[in-house]
Structures are given as structure tokens and as C-alpha cells.
């Protein structure tokens, strides 16, 4: 971390594409690095941002080119907050089946939310007005 680092905020409105997933991942890692997060934390942030972006692009916006994904990154020393919003039909995290349950263990999909929660210290989903889902994830230094 640079000795002068105090706070940095950046916002992006991204296309609903896999290129945006890569862009968001890189932006989050760059900021986490600037804010002094170590390699393990950077890997955790990378994984969570990637999963959240894929959810927004693929499941929320369904790759619709008219819909955007909102990304906000806020860092202060010791803490990174990532906010990602889509323009989809809305999403209730509590309704997602546990992929670790025996009956779900061999399903091909459904693990993204589990990984986001595992790799970040906080992960909240809220309904976005007028429509869509807003996810706020927070990571502190390990």
C-alpha cells in the first residue's frame, strides 16, 4: 500500500458481456492491491467479484446489450467494498438452494453465491429500484 493511500472510489457502467467480467475483476484487484490487500485476499476478492459479475451479466441481464451492469469499488486502508447492480428481474439469495446439500452436490450450477459468501466478509443482496438486484460485498484485511 502506498503511504499516501487514504481512500479511492471508482464507478463503472459496464456492458452485459463476459469482457465486463474480466474488466471488473482486474479493476477490483488493482484497487485491492493499491489498498494494501495481500495475495490471498486479492484472490478471494477476484473470485467473489467474478462470480457476482457473472450472475449480473448472465442471470440478471441475460447478456442483453441494452442493459448495463453497475460496478462501484470503494477502498480505504484495510477495507474494500464492491457493489454490483444489474437490471434483471430481481433475485432473492435466501431462495437459492444450498449446493452442498447431498441432493445438489452433483448439479452443474448454483455455486456462485456460496463462493461469494465464502470469500468475502459480508455479502448482501437488495432489490434495486425500479428493477434488478444490487449486491454489496465487503472484504477486510485477513
Amino acid at each position, binding site marked *: 500500500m502506498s503511504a499516501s493511500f487514504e481512500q479511492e472510489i471508482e464507478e463503472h457502467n459496464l456492458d452485459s458481456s*463476459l469482457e465486463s467480467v474480466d474488466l471488473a475483476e482486474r479493476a477490483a484487484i488493482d484497487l485491492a492491491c493499491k489498498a494494501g490487500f495481500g495475495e490471498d485476499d486479492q484472490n478471494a476478492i477476484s473470485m467473489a467479484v467474478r462470480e457476482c459479475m457473472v450472475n449480473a451479466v448472465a442471470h440478471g441481464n441475460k447478456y442483453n446489450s441494452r442493459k448495463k451492469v453497475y460496478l462501484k469499488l470503494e477502498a480505504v486502508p484495510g477495507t474494500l467494498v464492491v457493489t454490483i447492480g444489474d437490471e434483471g428481474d430481481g433475485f432473492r439469495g435466501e431462495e437459492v438452494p444450498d449446493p452442498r446439500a447431498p441432493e445438489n*452436490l*452433483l448439479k452443474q450450477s448454483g455455486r*456462485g453465491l456460496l463462493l461469494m459468501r465464502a470469500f468475502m466478509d459480508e455479502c448482501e443482496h437488495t432489490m434495486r429500484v425500479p428493477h434488478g438486484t444490487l449486491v454489496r460485498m465487503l472484504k477486510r484485511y485477513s
Partner: protein
Amino acid sequence: MSVTITTRQVGDVTVIDAAGRIILGEGSSAFRDTIKDLVTKGDKRILLNLSEVSYIDSSGIGELVSGFTTLSNAGGRLKLLGLTKRVHDLLQITKLYTVFEVFDDEATGLASFN
């Protein structure tokens, strides 16, 4: 870099050496196609070497599971070799460590098919 996949035959076991990132898009579809081609050819004993895989996302994990069930349904086995800490942690978090047989060294992994 996305994923690079090469296959080699060791006795009656096919070893898949993967390197790079197995993620949604090109990386996961390349892996899926490789498994499909091997099963079509009748190669049903597969040891997947992940020691050079730096990153797997949930889509990539889904492809591992899909490969496992495809081979099991065809009477074969998909086993894993050389997990990095990162991939190991993912299998722990998702409880897939209870599904896959995992080996640290190739000789032991190959011998397990006999």
C-alpha cells in the same frame, strides 16, 4: 490466458494436463469438449492434472462435476491430480472433496485405476 488442455495416454489411463484458467466461456467449454471427445472414443479412465491450473470459477467447477457424472454414467471414472491450494480450497468450500478422488502424485493416481 484461458485454459490449455493436452492429453496423453499412460497405459489404459488418459491423463489430461490442464493449464491456465477454467472459467465461464472458452475455458470451460474446452474442458467439456475434451471430456466428451474422450468418452466418445471409449476412453473412460481419466486422470485430470490440475497442477498448472491457476484459477477455476463456479462454471469451471460445474464442468468438473459434469465430467465426473458423464464418466460415471458411462461406466468410467474421473479423478483429480495435483490440486493447487486455491483449487483445493474451492473443493473444500463446495464439499466436492467428498465426491472426487484426489491424488498428489501421478503414479498413485494411475495405480488407483487398477
